[in-house]
């Protein structure tokens, strides 16, 4: 059963992302080697910088992301006022990257949070009560997982029209089954522990057992995975924007910036490289922190 589950999950979440089994390298040699925490600290710093600057973007001394500075295709690090250069319309790359981070983070975190809460609730009840409800949930999560996520997002964009709201709804739907499965599996594990049996023996009601005994024990493991999901969703958001099916221009997003800079890749690679590096660093940082969290959890379990 286990192998079959792993197998179908691997096929399903894949189109927009790599599955977990592959993302986390196997092999005891790797985990046994001591790893330095400095890269993790750098990753955390980058994310913090991104969050702070995008949250306070309006108060920072940035050029308006829609304004023409008068110099098109300025190379980065050649001007004090525009350290990251300008794009084909003379707009500030620094400002656009900061405002683009808003969309990426909002889409990634918001949809992961929605899927997290809804998926946790469904998985909790399905895993604890079992029976018909569990079977039904299993059937629907299997259905959602056995379908390319990008195609769901494309179909949504086709019918609802591209906008941030549609993107967030779509990304929540696509990541929902993963959270359902994770919380269900963790609920199954916790439900058999002695303290749950004890709570049941003392006559505690099911809602009370779920909220006081089971929930606190599954939030940790599931949210560890949530960090990686946010990274996956940020990639998905940028892919949609890049295809013109996500947040539309003139709103600056990393995907839109890359797609606009692409036509002049040969002459002005920086207009693709700047948003591309921002996107890559963010995804890499999130993955690194996710892996660090899981490694830490793995160690604390063993002690």
């Amino acid at each position, binding site marked *: 059963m286990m192998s079959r589950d792993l197998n179908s999950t691997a*096929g399903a979440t894949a189109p927009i992302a790599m599955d977990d089994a*592959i993302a986390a390298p*196997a092999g005891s040699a790797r985990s046994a080697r001591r790893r330095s925490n400095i890269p993790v600290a750098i990753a955390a710093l980058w994310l913090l910088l991104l969050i702070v600057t995008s949250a306070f973007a309006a108060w920072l001394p940035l050029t308006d992301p829609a304004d023409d500075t008068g110099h098109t295709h300025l190379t980065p690090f050649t001007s004090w006022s525009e350290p990251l250069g300008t794009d084909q319309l003379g707009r500030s790359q620094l400002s656009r990257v900061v405002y683009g981070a808003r969309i990426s983070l909002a889409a990634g975190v918001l949809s992961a949070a929605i899927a997290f809460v809804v998926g946790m609730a469904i998985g909790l009840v399905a895993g604890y009560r079992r029976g018909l409800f569990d079977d039904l949930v299993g059937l629907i999560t299997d259905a959602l997982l056995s379908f390319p996520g990008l195609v769901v997002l494309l179909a949504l964009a086709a019918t*609802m029209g591209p906008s941030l709201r549609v993107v967030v709804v779509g990304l929540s739907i696509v990541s929902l089954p993963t959270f359902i499965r994770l919380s269900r599996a963790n609920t199954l594990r916790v439900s058999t522990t002695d303290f749950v049996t004890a709570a049941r023996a003392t006559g505690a009601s099911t809602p009370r057992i779920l909220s006081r005994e089971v929930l606190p024990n599954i939030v940790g493991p599931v949210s560890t995975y949530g960090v990686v999901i946010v990274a996956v969703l940020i990639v998905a958001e940028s892919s949609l924007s890049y*295809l013109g099916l996500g947040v539309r221009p003139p709103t600056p997003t990393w995907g839109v910036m890359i797609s606009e800079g692409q036509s002049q*890749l*040969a002459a002005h690679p920086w207009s693709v490289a700047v948003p591309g590096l921002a996107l890559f660093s963010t995804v890499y940082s999130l*993955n690194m922190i996710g892996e660090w969290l899981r490694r830490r959890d793995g160690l604390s379990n063993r002690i």
Partner: protein
Amino acid sequence: MTRFVAGRLGRLVFVLLLVTFATTWFLDLTPSSPAIAIAGPDAQPEILEAINEQYGFNDPLVTRYGRWINDVTHGDLGRSYLTRQPVTESLVARLPVTIELTLLATVLALVLSVPAAMITAYRSGSRIDRGTDVFTSIVLCMPSFLTALLLIYVFAIKLHWFPIQGWVPISRSLTDNLRGAFLPALTVAMTEIVAFQRVLRADLIQTLQQDYIAMARSKGISTSRIMVRHALRPSSLSLITLGGISVARLLAGTIVVEIVFTLPGVGRLLVNAVLNKDLIMVQGLVLFIAGVYLVVNLLVDILYAAVDPRVRVR
């Protein structure tokens, strides 16, 4: 076994119905009606009404869905709202590019990942292994359109080894066709290479600890022969499973790559249909892609169950 296959088949049909019905249902939630998408935003109300009548957009949801499904079972996916071309015809015309891309990517993934896995597994923990690990984690964090642009910049713009874009049909020139298809196929293959390499490496490391490997070594068999004949064969089972899954994944993966390289494949057809709100085309293509994806997944599951009977219990 028959019951297992029947169960999985039933689930496949259920998922397909669920997905296509959901697509039809979304239609009703569309802010602008499909008639406006066909006639344009400035069309007269009478024209819109005529279109609604002609296409049957006024019928209830279930009737429309039933009609579409009925046509599908007769092999008719309808005609594009925009070009009036049958959906099946456009699909068949675009299919060869996507198939070629998928096959080439699979070949590239195998050719590059198997030797890489053998070297990193044999020298696990070495500088080469750690370097590969860093490289593969970087690749995993690259969205495919970014990988594509990086490859274009390095190999097409700077080194001039490959054309930047443009698709030459095989019928015209095989070498030009392969030159044009190489970078797109490599982009699609990139994540698969990493997946194969990581899984196979982990498997090989386990196999290399077996007694019969030590036995082979003590008999004085050369390293390369041990790696290929003794270690690779038992380790390649999971690779076969992964390969089947990845064929399905590649199909979805080509969508973005076809856009970046402007290749005339099914993925671009889908994205263009989405952008033009050509909903009947979208519905047909969603059915097709989902169908292929699900059938391949099903075959992998069956193969898996045939190899490992424990899987069947559930």
